């Protein structure tokens, strides 16, 4: 059956419930948040309708600017680590038997669905002095004494790469699984080693996919909220942590909303970049 334009009002009926739900519970809350970001804060946790830029002005102060800078750099580091690890992995995975792929996909989905709390708890255990990885190193005779590896920046980075790695693989998977195998076969026939074929044929072909993936993982990492708290020091806290802190503990909703709106703008800008990168890929 061909798709047809709606003929009668009744044809729109199926759209009614989804449209109402998404409008009331996503568009309206989003609008409320933007409105609140301009509101005036009252002492004691309340706020009154107003139209002031104070919240944004405060956000652009040196301290919060520093947090924003740290959040962005951390997300970039996570995105780069994940793509570097996941690209060859996903490529090799898509060349394996389908049954092997399924097992790996189940594992990746299971890790991806893990709560940030659980990932944070697991890695803080792994990095702890009493139950941590250093005990294994001591047992192997590689270290003399067990020690705690957290809180530290590398602990935060490891936890976040762990969280984002399955996501990265799943974002890369469709593009790599559809990659024309004759491309690498041609390179191999002409005498290139598999590694050389990967870097001279696969990577350049996927340039736009890689850029889009970097941006998507970056956005994913930007949302990380608990890992910096569980594995890092206060100077490793990200914008997400500060937004929640302001909203829940400081009861400063207008300020939290202003930071969230700013985060949305950054994210949307990056999504637009992904779309542009994707378009260029289609033309090429």
């Amino acid at each position: 059956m061909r798709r047809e334009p709606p003929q009668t009002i009744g044809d729109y009926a199926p759209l009614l419930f989804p449209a109402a739900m998404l409008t009331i519970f996503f568009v309206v809350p989003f609008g409320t948040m933007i409105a609140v970001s301009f509101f005036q804060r009252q002492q004691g946790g309340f706020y009154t309708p107003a139209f002031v830029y104070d919240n944004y002005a405060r956000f652009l102060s040196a301290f919060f600017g520093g947090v924003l800078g740290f959040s962005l750099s951390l997300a970039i580091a996570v995105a780069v680590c994940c793509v570097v690890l996941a690209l060859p992995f996903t490529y090799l995975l898509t060349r394996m038997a389908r049954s092997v792929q399924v097992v790996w996909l189940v594992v990746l989905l299971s890790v991806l669905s893990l709560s940030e709390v659980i990932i944070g708890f697991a890695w803080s255990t792994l990095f702890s002095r009493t139950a941590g990885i250093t005990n294994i190193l001591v047992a192997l005779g590689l270290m003399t004494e067990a020690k705690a590896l957290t809180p530290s920046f590398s602990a935060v980075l490891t936890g976040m790469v762990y969280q984002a790695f399955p996501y990265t693989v799943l974002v890369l998977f469709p593009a790599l699984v559809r990659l024309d195998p004759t491309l690498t076969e041609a390179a191999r026939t002409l005498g290139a080693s598999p590694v050389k074929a990967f870097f001279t044929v696969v990577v350049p072909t996927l340039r736009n996919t890689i850029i889009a993936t970097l941006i998507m993982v970056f956005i994913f990492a930007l949302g990380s909220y608990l890992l910096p708290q569980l594995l890092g020091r206060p100077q490793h806290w990200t914008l997400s942590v500060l937004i929640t802190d302001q909203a829940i503990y400081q009861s400063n909703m207008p300020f939290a909303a202003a930071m969230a709106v700013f985060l949305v703008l950054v994210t949307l800008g990056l999504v637009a970049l992904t779309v542009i990168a994707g378009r260029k890929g289609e033309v090429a």
Partner: protein
Amino acid sequence: MTSIFRKFYFFLIALFLALPLIVVAGVSVNQKQTLAFPPQGLSVSWYGEIFTNPEWRNALVASVTLAVLSAALAVAIALPLAWFLWRRVAPWANIFQLLGVAPFTLPPVITALGLLTFWATAGFYGQPWTAVVSHAIFFVTLPLVTLSLGFTSIDRSLVEAAATMGADDRTIFRTIVLPLILPYIVSGYAFAFVLSLNEYIVAYMTVGFTMETLPIKIFNALRYGYTPTMASVTVLFVSTAAIIFSLVARFGDLPKLLGAMSSDGK
């Protein structure tokens, strides 16, 4: 040479993914209430704790109830929308698809804060049902994506034939579309269910002070020190997720759901 390299590389990735879980599983069977690995003694009592200790049991019941209901609501929102977009030419309706994907694309703290301001303004802050709606909106993306994929795989000539024989939309939906789309409904539900079970920040910011889900309970418990029950809950959660995704893979085409071509196309 390259084969050895590949095996080693896959082994390292597997180790990286498994290591935290191995340690947590080890900790979960510790006999004493200490954080120790390798485990000292062997005891499964911490698994019993999840079901016998009222605090952990309540959190488990809250999490499962929330996941069951919010995943159902997410499917109820996604199914008519995906069907409409498949059945009708209405370009402006794509905006709702965009809205359905947006909450999952943006950093979760944004959806969480938006809903928090909304529930607070509307005067419903802290009501348990607000968490169900919040999760449904947050995870509607997952059934929406699987269902859109499912609809594109339906052979339109089948539907055409039924229409030529005089079947109306309702009959076509019941007899042709629904049976074909059912695996995608189930997998969309499964994805939303598992992710809702593990979700922290949206639940925390909407009902965190009145209702404790398991992730919230684990986080709160973490702040006041360590209990091995956290480890056993973690093992329980990972196993649940692995079982559910294995079932999806067993009865559906997992690589296809995740974007590969159909199995006969490759």
